[in-house]
């Protein structure tokens, strides 16, 4: 097999993986702090994707621009969801939380179906089908742009959690829930804020995603699953882990597609997940629970 082919496919895999990583980052941030697994994650991303499609269709706004207001809207959605629905469930058993979010997911998928119908939608901007030549490699321009943006957003998020007061407060209540209560932090508000931030991530990822794939209402669950695989491989709750997980999953899908049957490529991602769960259940970059 020619080396350029392998290099090309590997690069595409990494670039796509970074956008997946951004989506999974949202899930990881939420779990790391609120300790609730967001089973409606992919569905929230689908909402963001439809918002980008509407913005483009109605006002011709490039999804990469629309990304900013969409992230804000998703932040609000996440904030409200946590404040109203999820906060009372924080101390309930896992299966209760699961059903709560699964119900939210069912409502989201089908509300989108009611509004937008089942057709696949996409956004075609004038650079959608461009490719850049880097030496012998031919790289999809949109993938490069979205991957760079995903990295930038992730870096911004790191900075937020390390450098700002609110960011540190959120980390404090993730590390020590009781301690945070004792020192008088408003934990419920911080949880809502965190859920909002995680949702904003997935909002940005959803807006970018319309340039990469076609969106249908029923695509959400597949992304929820993909986000799980990524964060568990990287480490549930670890932010660099989510990006690493994204890259690894992107790469493993690309490589297994190249060397084995492409139809079985998600099996390799799941196999990776199973291996990680068995031998390093906290994930590659996760801390021991």
């Amino acid at each position, binding site marked *: 097999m020619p080396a350029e082919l392998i290099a090309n496919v590997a690069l595409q895999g990494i670039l796509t993986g970074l956008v997946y990583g951004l989506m999974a980052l949202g899930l990881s941030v939420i779990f790391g702090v609120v300790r609730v697994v967001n089973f409606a994650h992919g569905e929230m991303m689908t909402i963001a994707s439809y918002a980008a499609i509407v913005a483009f269709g109605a006002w011709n706004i490039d999804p990469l621009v629309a990304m900013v207001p969409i992230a804000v809207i998703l932040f609000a959605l996440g904030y409200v969801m946590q404040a109203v629905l999820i906060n009372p469930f924080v101390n309930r058993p896992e299966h209760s939380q699961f059903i709560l979010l699964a119900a939210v997911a069912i409502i989201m998928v089908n509300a989108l179906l009611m509004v937008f119908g089942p057709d*696949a939608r*996409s956004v075609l901007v004038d650079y*959608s*089908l461009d*490719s850049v030549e880097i030496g012998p490699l031919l790289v999809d321009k949109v993938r490069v742009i979205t991957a760079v943006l995903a990295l930038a957003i992730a870096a911004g998020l790191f900075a937020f959690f390390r450098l700002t007061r609110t960011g540190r407060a959120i980390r404090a209540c993730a590390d020590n829930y009781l301690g945070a209560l004792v020192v008088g932090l408003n934990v419920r508000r911080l949880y809502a804020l965190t859920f909002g931030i995680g949702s904003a991530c997935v909002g940005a990822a959803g807006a970018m995603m319309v340039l990469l*794939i076609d969106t249908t209402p*029923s695509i959400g669950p597949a992304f929820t699953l993909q986000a799980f695989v990524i964060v568990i491989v990287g480490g549930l709750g670890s932010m660099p882990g989510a990006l690493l997980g994204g890259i690894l999953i992107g790469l493993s*899908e690309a490589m297994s597609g190249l060397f084995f049957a*492409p139809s079985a490529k998600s099996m390799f991602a799941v196999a990776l997940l199973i291996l990680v769960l068995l031998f390093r259940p906290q994930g590659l970059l996760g801390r021991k629970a």
Partner: protein
Amino acid sequence: MTKLTRRQFAAGTVAGAALFAGSGPFNIVRAQGAKLRIGSIHPRSGYQAQLGLACQRGIDIAPRVLKQLGMGADIEIMSADTESNVDVARSRAEKLINDGANVLIGAFDSGQSAAIAQVAEQKGVPYIINVAAAPQITEQGYKFVFRNFPTAPMLVGDGLNLMKGVFEKSGITPKTAVFMHVNDTFGQSMAGAIKAMAPRFNLPFQIVETIAYDPQAKDLSVEIAKAKATGAEMLMPVTRLNDAILMVREMVKQRWEPKIVMSPGAPGFYEGQFYKTLGKFSNGMITNVPWYNPRSQLTQKLLDEFTKTYKNEMFELNVGFSFEAVMVAADAFNRAKSTDGKALADAIRQTRIENHVMAGGTLQFNEKGQNVNIKSVTLQNLDQRPKVVLPLDIAEDNLLLPLPSWSKR
């Protein structure tokens, strides 16, 4: 090659209307006072919703069109949604029959169709399958199940035959091909049929690589990179809709330009969404698939009604086959003069409809309940819509090969 102009088209339609108004295509004796209740059952939500809704449109306009044709049996359409789910399909079928459906029509998906077939058989209610290709359904010995859609082997047989015609007509004969297929029920039936039948057809090309991909694939970059690396002259895809779009988009991005892209009989390339999404890049793709006969006056009639009712939707084979299913039911009802399941099934078995929508011979069913007279045509996407290019007697335009490069489309 005769090119049908718009004026000729219009003239044909007028003549057709006059003809229908005069005598009507069938010797119809109206069933007195009775009403035929047709249960239409399709996946209208869930992941197959898109195509289930397309089928439903064909069913919904059928009673009106049939009335215009003078085949105006008193028809009531009862609709149900399978939610793209086998158990729901089964219980909805029970419900329809319980509510008084005399005939069932559905269901686009093979698994759901198989589940409905069992219920219909048990209850002795005729079931006409409009779209579903898994060959097993009409091999199970049912007495009340009829299928007016080709099986996967029929599709592949026609598809491969027509390929030879395309090579002959264009003078371009590829020596190598890549076969890409979606790995779902339909894709695998097609792949199986191709594997079994290709040797018999003496095809000029060799399949150098078979690439199966996940039906839920979100991008096909690896698959296309792999296909491109083979350097094959022809791409032979079996797709559904979304993956067909992904495939072409990725081909443009990776600048892969095989001489021919020809599907042996799968959806995707000819669907409204494909043109809407890809614009000029949709041009050139070839599909060998059962299609409406553009020369049939009945088709024109149906097309008029369809465009009047659904302005933004495309008229394609799902609509055509769904309409024909209603026509079969209405015709049988008119002859049986009864809504009794047994009488209707016997009447359907006697169906002989010469003048219909889809290309091919007389619409009739063999002892297994399968219509074996359906014929595929060669469609090519030209001017961002599907046009029949072969066989020549019903062709709407000329075959365009080799494909121009992406930048010139």
